[in-house]
């Protein structure tokens, strides 16, 4: 590979100040411990972890909403730490994000059109009104929404619609990387596959790189060819998704696999029996 990765994280460590009471001595919690990975152009990488694994800290650090203790975040080869606030804002544009709770990520006072057009208006070379409107329409169609929804307030959308609007907003500025933070776990099961399908399709048509943060191994497998498992701030496992799922090396990964729910009744009974022995193995 000669091209530099679109996103690279080198030895990133972040600690949080933790104080049990006002007078207690400050102690630090290491939220991320020397995490490194690279995301190549067009790659889809899953970061799998549970609460407290450091997932959210990682996401925030990627946008420099947290200052790391040590380590670097490089976006298209540029270290975020050396940028001025306005340069940082420019640079962030090549990396956009979709959140877990679609309704919370849309301003309740805004219409769909205002939400989707906002990143365009924030650009230094903002397109004029009709051009912007045109791009919003195209973008809504691209994520499978009826442009007639444009004038609707974001709070009157269904969960699935709202998540599509959030994806449209993230993609309107043509970013190189899309970071998805649990994009389907707040949605009903019947909508999950649709949204994941949309992500897979957008990735293919736009050559997008995906960083897919999830607790759900099956969603990771559905979207990403590579997987990295985060546990207590450390990378405990990495490789192709296929490898990680079939030949997990770390005990935590194995536990995660064992715990993952399945609708396959035979497999479900096996896993149940595996955990509590012969009590329920009837």
């Amino acid at each position, binding site marked *: 590979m000669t091209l530099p990765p679109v996103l690279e994280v080198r030895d990133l460590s972040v600690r949080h100040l933790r104080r049990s009471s006002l007078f207690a001595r400050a102690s630090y919690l290491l939220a991320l411990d020397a995490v490194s990975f690279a995301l190549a152009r067009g790659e889809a990488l899953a970061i799998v972890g549970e609460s407290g694994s450091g997932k959210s800290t990682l996401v925030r650090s990627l*946008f420099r*909403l947290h200052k790391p203790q040590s380590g670097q975040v490089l976006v298209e080869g540029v270290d975020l730490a050396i940028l001025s606030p*306005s340069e940082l*804002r*420019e640079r*962030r*544009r090549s*990396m*956009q*994000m979709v*959140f877990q*709770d679609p309704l*919370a*990520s*849309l*301003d*309740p*006072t*805004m219409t769909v059109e205002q939400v989707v057009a*906002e*990143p365009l*208006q*924030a*650009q230094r070379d903002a397109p004029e009104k009709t051009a912007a409107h045109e791009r919003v329409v195209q973008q809504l169609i691209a994520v499978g929404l009826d442009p007639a929804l444009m004038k609707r307030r974001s709070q009157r959308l269904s969960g699935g619609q709202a998540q599509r609007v*959030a994806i449209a*907003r*993230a993609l309107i*500025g043509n970013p190189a990387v899309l970071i998805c933070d649990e994009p389907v776990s707040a949605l009903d099961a019947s909508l999950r596959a649709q949204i994941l399908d949309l992500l897979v399709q957008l990735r293919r048509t736009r050559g997008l790189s995906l960083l897919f943060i999830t607790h759900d191994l099956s969603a990771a497998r559905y979207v990403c060819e590579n997987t990295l498992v985060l546990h207590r701030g450390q990378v405990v496992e990495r490789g192709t998704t296929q490898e990680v799922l079939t030949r997990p090396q770390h005990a935590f990964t194995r536990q995660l696999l064992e715990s993952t729910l399945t609708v396959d009744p035979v497999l479900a009974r096996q896993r149940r029996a595996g955990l509590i022995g012969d009590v329920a193995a009837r």
Partner: protein
Amino acid sequence: MNHTLPRISVWMLAALLLAALLVPWISPYDYFTPAWDQTNLSPALAGGHLLGTDQLGRDLLVRLMWSTRISLLVALAASLISLSIGVSWGVTAGYLGGRTDALMMRLVDVLYSVPFTPFVIVLTVVFGRNLWLLFVAIGAVSWLDIARIVRGQTRSLRHREFVVAADIAGVSPSRIMLRHIVPNLMGIVIVYLTLTIPTVILTEAFLSYLGLGAQAPLTSLGVMLADGAAQMRARPLMLIMPATVLILLVYCCNRIGDRLRDRYAG
């Protein structure tokens, strides 16, 4: 819980507002011209002075309506001043956070500890007595509460995902405050506006009563209360009437504000 607006309060406030608004056009008298042949009339249906006249022969009903008008005007203007300062101050401090926040809020703390009445007296000594000074004095003090509340709300809004999303999308801080923070504060701001107005009405009455507010011949509820208090024994009605209007005004605003707070501000 019952969240419908208290209907009686709404109607009563509307009637008072209407009277205050329309008085220059509906009254046959003005509030300042003395009529030496009609001084100290008692209330009567006949004779054209429903509530009687004062010691200068001015119609009391008209003066009452004008007083309501002036008091409401002061209240509205001062509330709007305090709201605009309070909201911009609170949003800026809350959104920027860090050292800016600390500095701005310490200033609020300092202003909190300035005693209000001596402050106004000093102002009147320096600038002379006038109504505009009253606006500024009241507005300059009552924004402190709003700034604190707005700052707190802003700090929680700041971590909401739609604000983070805008930040990530490259929207500048000033634009985020304007487009995302302020619109989402409107509910609370409106509630506090309805709760600030009655406080300001009372403050105005207090200052005018002391002679620091509206100056003769201009009238306000505070001025009328002072006039009435001077003749309390001879003509108790002159005290009771402005007092009733003041109580009604403050009560209705508070009722409506409380109910709005239940509904919009949790």
